[in-house]
């Protein structure tokens, strides 16, 4: 009970913070900064407490709040933590104070408004993660858009208007489709079962024919795929990143992109399992294309931020690949990869912000030999770069390894049943690790090594604040790389539930509760391959 | 044609004449007054129906329309005053800043 209240407090703390900020007198920028940092730290402390209290042996929601909201539509205010979101909530709260501290010196214009926006987006992101009711989810989902839009639009770079409009159009387009699908889904649930509800748990029981599932998955999926972003819906991301202020980039890469993959995991796939089954080769293909495409394009970028932006596309491709592998390795790996990318991309964007504050350029060609000029900076940069390409002992390795293991396992089972395409795709994905090393190391080489050069010299190495921010991120990266077991305990039951939900046909024709596993599927194997063998039609 | 029909016809006529006045008269004040006429036409139909059906709903609506009309004039008149102060004319054709 107390913990459930605490979860609500965590979510609404940023809103209270905005009220406090708006009440603060003008011109008190330092106070505003410290206040926001304090709030975010408090929030992190509360989330950490909840994380520790989270019982990994309990399936389903914990710290749940469920109140009627719009009774006539069956809308509830329902939030809670489960294995799907607990790590992501922790990561979001973890990045909060770092984002705030990272923007201490970078933001000088409209400080109060800026931090209000940071708090607002924090509120919306946490709300999206903890929402367990589709209506509530949608409200939070849309709320996220506004502060991000303003952040890029007000504090962005030169082409910020173009970038914001592009960002907005892409995401709004996806959202509209999702809204239509949400309405259809709820109405069809009502007509088939007589329940009017937006609760995820009820919607998981909906029974839809395959063609309808396909259309709805396409609508949901488009919205999520734009957020991820998957190739070919990705072109908003590099522009948004380049124009966004550092804090915006960090939030965008760190958390916002995970909304897409989280959406697939929590909604897209479990709601429409049969359509997921039908689309799996296509999704897998797109995921692999994202991995390769993002990596290749990152290779030829000249703007530091764009390199990291395209690398994000590549890394999120792994997450999608893990999810569609539909076995525990892939799913768990996907979750870890999400968190890992949240840490490394956030760290890298923060570091780009730090160098930008010193040199006022993001052109890679203007830099060289920073290892000589900024030795401490370079160490952090190298660590984060290597974590990003999945070097063992870092979090990136845990994620990539498990994802690839899962994807390969699924593909191999498919191969034994006579289909070679998934195996080919999985092999290409594995070779994605080469491309990852290629662009990141080339980037690091041109950036850190060679003859020392950088505009606006001299400048100091990282100060204590910057070292603290990066030190915390790097520590988290190593913890997740060396001891991933503890966090994965918390998500394991959710991963199993996901596997079971997606593995259970819901066309309404197949007998309910049939696990759908054939003889070839091992204990951890992907059920869908076994089913593909016995034929998905009854 | 009995009483009710006559009154309904009158309300239609008043509304139409008011609308026509808004479309063809160029003086802004006259246009405002024509709008009042349209409201009066609507009021008449409401009162008529209310009378015919013996329901108070129509009367309540009429009452609300009074309030709306008052509010409308209270805002419209200052706007007109402001516009006149700007261009020194009541001619509507002088105001085309909404041109796309």
């Amino acid at each position, binding site marked *: 009970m107390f913990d459930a209240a605490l979860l609500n407090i965590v979510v609404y703390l940023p809103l209270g913070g905005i009220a406090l900020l708006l009440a603060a007198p003008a011109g008190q920028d330092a106070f505003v900064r410290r206040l926001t940092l304090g709030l975010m730290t408090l929030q992190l402390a509360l989330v950490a407490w909840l994380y520790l209290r989270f019982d990994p042996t309990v399936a389903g929601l914990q710290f749940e709040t469920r109140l009627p909201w719009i009774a006539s539509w069956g809308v509830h205010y329902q939030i809670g933590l489960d294995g799907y979101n607990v790590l992501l909530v922790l990561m979001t709260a973890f990045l909060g104070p770092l984002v705030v501290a990272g923007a201490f010196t970078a933001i000088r214009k409209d400080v109060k408004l800026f931090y209000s926006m940071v708090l607002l987006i924090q509120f919306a992101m946490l709300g999206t993660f903890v929402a367990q009711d589709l209506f509530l989810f949608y409200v939070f989902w849309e709320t996220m858009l506004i502060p991000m839009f303003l952040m890029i639009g007000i504090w962005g770079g030169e082409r910020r208007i173009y970038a914001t409009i592009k960002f907005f159009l892409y995401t709004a387009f996806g959202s509209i489709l999702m809204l239509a699908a949400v309405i259809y889904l709820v109405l069809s649930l009502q007509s088939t079962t007589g329940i009017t509800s937006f609760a995820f748990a009820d919607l998981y029981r909906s029974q839809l024919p395959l063609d309808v599932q396909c259309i709805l998955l396409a609508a949901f999926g488009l919205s999520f795929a734009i957020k991820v972003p998957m190739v070919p819906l990705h072109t908003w991301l590099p522009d948004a990143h380049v124009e966004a202020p550092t804090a915006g980039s960090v939030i965008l890469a760190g958390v916002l992109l995970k909304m897409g993959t989280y959406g697939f995991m929590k909604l897209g796939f479990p709601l429409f399992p049969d359509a997921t089954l039908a689309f799996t080769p296509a999704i897998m293909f797109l995921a692999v294309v994202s991995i390769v495409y993002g990596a290749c394009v990152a290779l030829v970028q000249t703007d530091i931020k764009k390199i990291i932006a395209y690398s994000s596309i590549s890394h999120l491709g792994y997450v999608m690949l893990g999810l569609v592998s539909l076995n525990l390795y892939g799913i768990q790996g996907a979750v870890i990869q999400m968190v890992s990318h949240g840490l490394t991309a956030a760290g890298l964007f923060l570091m780009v912000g730090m160098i930008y504050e010193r040199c006022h350029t993001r052109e890679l060609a203007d830099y060289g030999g920073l290892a000589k000029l900024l030795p401490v900076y370079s160490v952090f940069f190298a660590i984060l770069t290597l974590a990003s390409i999945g070097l063992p002992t870092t979090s990136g390795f845990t994620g990539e390894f498990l994802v690839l293991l899962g994807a390969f396992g699924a593909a191999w089972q498919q191969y034994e049943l006579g289909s070679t395409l998934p195996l080919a795709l999985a092999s290409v994905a594995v070779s994605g690790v080469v491309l990852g090393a290629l662009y990141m190391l080339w980037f690091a080489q041109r950036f850190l090594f060679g003859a020392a050069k950088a505009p606006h010299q001299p400048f100091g190495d990282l100060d204590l604040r910057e070292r603290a921010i990066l030190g915390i991120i790097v520590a988290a990266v190593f913890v997740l790389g060396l001891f991933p077991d503890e966090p994965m305990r918390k998500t394991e039951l959710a991963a199993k539930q996901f596997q079971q939900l997606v593995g259970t046909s819901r066309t309404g024709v197949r007998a309910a509760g049939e696990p759908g596993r054939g003889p070839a599927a091992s204990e951890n194997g992907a059920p869908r391959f076994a089913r593909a063998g016995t034929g998905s039609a009854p | 044609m009995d009483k009710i029909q006559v009154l309904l016809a009158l309300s239609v006529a008043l509304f139409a004449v008011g609308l026509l006045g808004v479309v063809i008269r160029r003086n802004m004040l006259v246009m405002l007054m024509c709008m009042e006429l349209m409201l009066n036409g609507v009021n008449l139909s409401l009162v008529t129906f209310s009378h015919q059906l013996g329901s108070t709903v129509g009367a309540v609506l009429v009452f609300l329309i009074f309030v709306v009309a008052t509010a409308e004039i209270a805002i419209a008149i*200052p706007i007109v005053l*402001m516009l006149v102060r700007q261009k020194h004319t009541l001619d509507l054709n002088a105001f085309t800043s909404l041109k796309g």
Partner: protein
Amino acid sequence: MIESLLQHLDTLLLYVFAACALVGAVLMLVLRQPMRVAMALISTMVFLGGIYGLLGVHFIAAFQVLIYVGAVMVFMVYVIMLLEIRESAGMARYSALVVPGVVATALFVGALGYGVWHGYPALIRAAAGTRFGIHQFSISFLTEYWLHFELTSVLLVAAVVAALAVIKVSRRAHG
């Protein structure tokens, strides 16, 4: 004769008032001077008030005269008097849309009339319901429609604030 006349006096008066109201309305279209237009509108409103009285809804008749004629139109007349002196005399009376406007209005009336007369004949039959007075009106207003009633006050306050704001903005803009 006279008896029957007296018997139908209210009906007769109704027709006369209706005709006068229509004439006043049409005059609004043709008169040039805004002051005269205002007078025509006032007369139309007064006749409408008479019609309401004849229909037995006296309180609305009273409001019609009090609010429309007493408040709104007085305000209007005041503004006309304020602005008349600056008005250029050579201003055209009609816009370029006279002909299409008239045609469209005629079509509008035709369509409306046709639809109502042929589509919903039951609607326009003679009275069947019970009469009601200020008593019933007040009861239903303050019980059933109390929220709407209260909201009107909010609307009025908003209008006042808006009017003030408009004046203030124009003052600031002009110095």
